[in-house]
């Protein structure tokens, strides 16, 4: 082993891997767009208010319903994982407002590129939530037709989908359509080269795409300071397009800011980065144990900002919803949970030959050969009755 001996010099600074003092988000963040306070108070925000100015009580209840059902679905999936019905689950707990607000801002002809956690966005796009469970159960790697709801498959390799979204948006522009595209990604993903390249391409081609970053403060065990030392929304400036930070636990603000950004895209003004400042209330996935790396107090502090509770308070104090609404929703929620349980438990294992399906669209001699060998091999067990 050849190891250079380094002349011992007097260290003049902390040795480089200590966390640099990242600008901690201040208690009152001047740069955070908010329309509903954690206490459920509606506040004005000139620029963005116009995008929710004409929102009806019914729509508000709709947003609330979306969040409640999404959370219920998510909880059901977590418990199905515990029961062994799913191999894994990535919970969105705490991020309902960011997802429902942005998801409801999209138009039917817009196209969405999610990560693996956008269950709430999928809900808004009309994807049957039980379809999301196939990959977590291990029966497929993506269980829906992306073009049925303009909702792309979940992407697990961090950041990749931001380039797909950008390319898709370039195509939208070429077609002369006025649709927009939205790409979801996390605070951790912001470090991936692919995400930076998607910023470059979208800016250079002025592509109609919104980059929606859910900064949930954590990338598995790493806090956002491991990814950046300045707020993430500022990243956009250096690529020549606007970035804005929105209260990710405020569904109204998320709706308004995303609408604004999508409108910009439609008008041909190019990309926008939206950083939804939120919090991953649960574990990274059901395989994760956050007690290894973060303090309970942090979570508790964020509980006070719960996205669902704050809209509920607002609905109640503004008399936009009555007891009946909440009771009905409770029942609907139970029914959803039940349906999800039933569908998942009945989900059949895939046929063995599915291994060889759809590897190619136009076929491939080797796949054919291996499929035939596999068939012969399977058949050899049938000959022997129940196999060896």
């Amino acid at each position, binding site marked *: 082993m050849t190891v250079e001996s380094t002349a011992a010099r007097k260290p003049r600074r902390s040795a480089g891997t200590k966390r640099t003092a990242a600008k901690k988000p201040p208690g009152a963040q001047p740069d955070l767009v908010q329309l509903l306070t954690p206490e459920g108070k509606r506040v004005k925000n000139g620029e963005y208010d116009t995008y929710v100015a004409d929102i009806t009580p019914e729509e508000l209840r709709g947003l609330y319903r979306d969040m409640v059902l999404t959370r219920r679905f998510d909880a059901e999936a977590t418990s199905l994982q515990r029961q062994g019905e799913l191999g894994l689950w990535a919970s969105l707990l705490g991020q309902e407002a960011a997802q429902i607000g942005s998801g409801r801002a999209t138009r039917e002809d817009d196209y969405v590129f999610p990560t693996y956690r956008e269950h709430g966005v999928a809900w808004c796009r009309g994807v049957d939530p039980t379809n999301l469970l196939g990959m977590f159960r291990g029966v497929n790697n993506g269980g829906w037709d992306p073009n049925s709801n303009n909702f792309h498959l979940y992407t697990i390799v961090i950041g*990749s989908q931001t380039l797909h979204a950008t390319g898709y948006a370039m195509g939208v522009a070429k077609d002369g359509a006025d649709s927009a595209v939205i790409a979801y990604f996390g605070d951790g993903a912001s470090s991936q080269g692919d995400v930076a390249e998607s910023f470059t391409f979208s800016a250079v081609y002025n592509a109609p795409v919104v980059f929606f970053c859910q900064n949930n403060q954590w990338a598995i065990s790493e806090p956002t300071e491991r990814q950046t030392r300045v707020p993430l929304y500022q990243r956009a400036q250096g690529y020549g397009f606007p970035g804005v930070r929105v209260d990710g636990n405020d569904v109204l603000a998320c709706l308004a800011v995303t609408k604004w950004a999508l409108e910009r895209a439609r008008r041909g003004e190019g990309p926008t980065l939206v950083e939804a400042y939120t919090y991953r209330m649960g574990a990274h996935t059901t395989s994760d144990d956050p007690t290894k790396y973060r303090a309970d107090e942090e979570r508790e502090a964020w509980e006070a900002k719960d996205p669902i509770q704050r809209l509920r308070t607002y609905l109640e104090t503004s008399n936009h919803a009555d007891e009946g609404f909440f009771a009905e929703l409770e029942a609907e929620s139970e029914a959803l949970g039940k349906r999800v349980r039933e569908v998942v438990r009945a989900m059949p294992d895939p046929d063995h030959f599915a291994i060889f399906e759809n*590897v190619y669209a136009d076929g491939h*001699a*080797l796949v054919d050969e291996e499929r035939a060998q596999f068939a012969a091999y399977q058949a050899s067990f049938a000959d022997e009755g129940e196999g060896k």
Partner: protein
Amino acid sequence: MTAEKMALAKAINESLRTALDADPKVLIMGEDVGKLGGVFRVTDGLQKDFGEDRVIDTPLAESGIVGTAIGLALRGYRPVVEIQFDGFVFPAYDQIVTQLAKMHARALGKIKLPVVIRIPYGGGIGAVEHHSESPEALFAHVAGLKVVSPSNASDAYWMMQQAIQSDDPVIFFEPKRRYWDKSEVNREAIPGPLHKARVVREGSDLTLAAYGPMVKVCQEVAAAAQEEGKSLEVVDLRSMSPIDFDSVQASVEKTRRLVVVHEAPVFLGTGAEIAARITERCFYHLEAPVLRVGGYHAPYPPARLEEEYLPGLDRVLDTVDRSLAY
């Protein structure tokens, strides 16, 4: 207009032009493919005739090029992407193997990825590092990709047409040191299947299997061997994924000897798979083990050493002799 003699690079250019003309969804993307027409002029004149919207100079970022091509394909386009040189495809490798190759299967067939990635590859042009590599095995090993390489102008023209028409991603390796070699292209001939090998010279004593730039070398070897009274059959594989083992098997059942030649390093090169599979298929026919000639397990050397590194006439002949000596 029937057959016309043209350089391989020109044949690709004509093929791209034909495709751009025929289908408004076909796009050309890459670094310097526009005004410059690419560093090898393969896309020469295309931007002028089809506009910046269809022949697109991209930012200098290969992952971005392939990643956005995927997105364009999802929108219904058929992007033909140029990677400037073999050694520069690796920044895009992640997008190619984890996204492009797998997305059709991931979507249970619901979406298609008709993306062609053109890669000028191989050595022999006296270039600096990263400009002479043959990484085809790194793509052929990956399910979901198809990998082809033409050896002559006619194949270049037709295989490119077929690659663009394919609904699967195709990695299209262009033998850059043959770009200027001219041969007949008949634009009306109906081509055979994209992934079928072709016997380009018949023989009875031994089969030489090669593709891309090495086909010419093998033809020269066969001619030289002829003078020594040896009859070599030369198979142009044309496709590395899938490999047309049936054609190779048929030839080897006749000649009973096989030598595979490629520029890529021998260790885990496509020749390894051909040797393994043909040995299995022709175990009782082979008079000698399948031998391989290729690059060494070393980085592609500086230009002044490439003649020693690349399989040439002498080295292939030497291996032919070794095989015949069994």
